[in-house]
Each structure stands twice: as C-alpha cells, then as structure tokens.
C-alpha cells in the first residue's frame, strides 16, 4: 500500500520560493492571489499491513522527511 507525505514550511517561517511564485503570478494579472505555499510530496510504498505501513510512514516523516524545527507534515493513504 502507498502513503503520501506532504512536507511544508511552518506558516511562520518565510518561504522564499512561494513568495517568488506569488510575486510573479501577481505580476501576470492574478491580482486576487493572496499567497502561495510550496510543499514537497513523497510517495512511500509498503508491503505488510496497513497499520504497520501507517506507523512506519509516520516515523519516517517525523524523523527524516520533515525537520521539526521548520517544517510540518501530513500523511494520507493513497
């Protein structure tokens, strides 16, 4: 089974990439655009039970894929 993990910067941390995209899109006429947040998506495939996969995905996200100092993550089964 597969899980997706989305990692993004915490809201209070400046995201220069999102800001650059936002500025450019604003300049291209999307005036109502209020903000852009860039995130990273990982797809993890596991063998074994769903519960085991879920637990491993959480551990991987928490300890490796996201840096708790600056980032948050979400896990979804796909």
């Amino acid at each position, binding site marked *: 089974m597969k899980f997706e993990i989305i990692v993004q*910067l915490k809201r*209070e*941390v*400046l995201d220069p*990439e999102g800001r650059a995209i936002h500025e450019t899109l604003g300049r291209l006429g999307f005036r109502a655009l209020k903000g852009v947040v860039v995130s990273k998506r990982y797809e993890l495939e596991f063998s074994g039970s769903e519960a085991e996969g879920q637990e491993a995905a959480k551990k991987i996200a928490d300890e490796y894929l996201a*840096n708790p100092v600056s980032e948050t993550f979400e896990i979804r089964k796909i």
Partner: protein
Amino acid sequence: MTQFTNIGKPNVGLIQFPGSNCDADCVDTLKRHFGLDTTLVWHTEKSLPKVDAVILPGGFSYGDYLRSGALASHSPVMASVKEFVKKGGPVIGICNGFQILTESHLLPGALLRNASREFICKYVHLQGQTGTSVYSSMLCGKTLSMPIAHGEGRYYIDPEGLKKLNDKGQVVFRYAAADGSVSDASNPNGATEHIAGIASENGRVFGMMPHPERATDVVMGGSNDGLQVWKAFFASFL
C-alpha cells in the same frame, strides 16, 4: 605560522561526505598554518578513529537531497560523531558542516533557503559576540572578513529557542558591516537576528556559515581573518 610542539599536537579528524568540497581547504589550512596532518574519515566508516577534534567541512553532501545536511546527519560515521559530542568532544562545522550539525540536533535551529532566493558567494563581515564559549571569549568585539558561499544559509530558530541562545551566550557571530555594526543591511541571507555562527551550550560544538578556511592567506582574496577562527577552534579544546 602557529606551530604546535610535538607533545601538544592535536589529532584532528575531518569527515568527508560525497559532495564535500571544502575538505582540501581545511587540510591545507591545518598543514600550512598549524603544521598539522589531518586524519580523513570517509562517511561510511562505522566508528571514528581516535581523534581530539572533528571538522565537518563545507560542500553539498549527498547532493543536498532531502534538505541540506539531512542525509549526511544519518550517515554511518555521524552516529559515532554524535557519541563523540556526547562525551564532550569538540566539533567545528562550516557551511554544509553547520547544516549537518543542526540536522543532527547537535546545534539548535535550522538553515533554510536564503531570503533573497539567490546563491550568495561574497566576502562578508562578521562581528564576534559576547558569550560563554571559548570562541566568544577569543573573538568577541572583533570584526572579521571572510567569504560566504551558500544558497541555504538563512539561520532560523523559533522565538523560544532564540531567547535561549541569547540568554546562554551561544551566538558567536552575527553578520555585520565593515565597522562592526549589525543591521538588516549587512544580513546577506535573512538569518534570524543576523546570526552567522553559534556554539553549543558547553561551547564544544561550533557551527558557522562563512568559510574561515577560505580566508587564511591575504594573497587569496584580501583576508586571513579565518585563522582567528581556527585558533579559537584549537583553544576550545587545548
């Protein structure tokens, strides 16, 4: 040249990761300016040889994949470096080495994409800060000039962590103007409170984004201020 006597000669280990590219500069600095041979340690080693101190050099370890320094922090040799630090072992991390130290949680905070989004390669000035480490006691009040070369050097720490850093006197360097004044104008990457280098609470682990190993000979670009950082590194454990 500062030379050690044969009795007092420290054995310094340098960890090489795939993508390290400032390793040779560190080796050269220690050889020509301090008369020391460096022990090179490849990242796949499971244990650290007997060394007195460790250098984590700059570069782009593991291609900066995942996050700068993140994969290196989980390399086999780093488990042993973490043990070394636990026992009070001294470590200096420069640029990518600093990123590896924060990713390893050996120093607080994180190093994020520069606010300007640009890779910045230029000489900057650093102002040594008052603090509790040997680095601070040797460098506080001094304005040093040396290069930075990074795309992800914006030091970030949350307000609580920042307060702790300041209260415990762990900030060693802030980006400054040539006269030593610290302001937004002299902050190249948007770092929290212009922080360029910090030490651990016990002062044994030190990380900085600028490159002291690239400022050791005036002929190479106008500054040998980096040598003062290396002297502080040696003083931190000798």
